[in-house]
């Protein structure tokens, strides 16, 4: 994947209205998490970052916002889909997956992952 850090930063920005995106370990094959600000629930996508980006590219946001940069339009519409999914999530749901009707949530086990937080980026 080209320029993983840049794509990560863009996706993180588009989802910032919902909560905090993180990828662990921090590379394109890392597990993707979203901590939903409104409820504090930690969700995990059912695929690694490259898989999530493939779904972002399928959102055809450019048909909604034809004047916008296509990638930005896709990420914006993707974030709306994430919003409606986490807003509809039942208690106990923590996995975001793609079903026959689009993004959904379900209960499950969060991927084993390690979260690191550095104050100065060593």
């Amino acid at each position: 994947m080209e320029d993983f850090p840049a794509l990560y930063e863009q996706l993180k920005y588009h989802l910032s209205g919902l909560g905090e995106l993180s990828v662990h370990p921090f590379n394109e094959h890392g597990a993707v998490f979203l901590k939903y600000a409104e409820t504090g629930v930690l969700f995990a996508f059912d695929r690694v970052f490259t898989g999530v980006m493939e779904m972002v590219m399928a959102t055809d946001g450019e048909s909604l916002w034809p004047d916008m940069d296509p990638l930005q339009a896709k990420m914006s519409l993707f974030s709306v889909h994430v919003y409606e999914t986490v807003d509809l999530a039942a208690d106990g749901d923590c996995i975001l997956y793609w079903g026959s009707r689009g993004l959904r949530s379900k209960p499950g086990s969060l991927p084993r992952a390690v979260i690191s937080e550095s104050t100065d980026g060593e």
Partner: protein
Amino acid sequence: MRSVKKVWATIASTALTATILAGGAAPSMAAEDLTASDRAAASTLDLSTTEYREVKSLGEEGKLELWAGGKKFSPKRSTNLPVGIAAAYQPKTWGACGVRTDNYKHVRTWRVTTAPWQAKDIVMKCGTWTSKNPNGGWGYRHVKGKHGGEWAALGNQVQANWRDIADFAITDALDNIYSGSERASNNTFTYKGEVQLRKYNGSVIRTYYTRVTADQTDRRLITAFYSSSR
């Protein structure tokens, strides 16, 4: 050298799900009586199987009502309103969207009465969503494809189709806005409304909170759905 602080936390891999059987007994008769479709509807409506059985029974007898913003949902063909009903809402007809219909064909326009877009329109267009690509989507096709079943679960309780119920709830959200939120990060604004499922005697069974998201540039409706959480 500046100090470095690292906090490591392992995300538990322990399964979060647990099955709780009341009293360890076999499933109740109420659950056995319900079809898979009924159980799905009960889940969508956030009702226990026992509650859903009662709701289903009352609905079949025509003893359920939907209310929003002081108005009672009234099916299109109903002309005799019950005495004492101050106002009834009769849903508007939506434009049709066929498989080959242009994405930008007009379906329905709502005139917003409250900030930030008061006296402006929110427009529903056909938009996009297909079963081959359910990950795309905005407008009518997205609302139908992703949330049509949820609207139908509510509509079935008052013998109405999903479009009429969605029209009722969206109109309430845009007429009687209880709250809203702007998301600059994705160029959208979300209006919130609320719809109550009531018994014929006025007691509230559940309150559902409608979300209507539109883009800030052209005020095109992107999605509309409801949940039982505020």
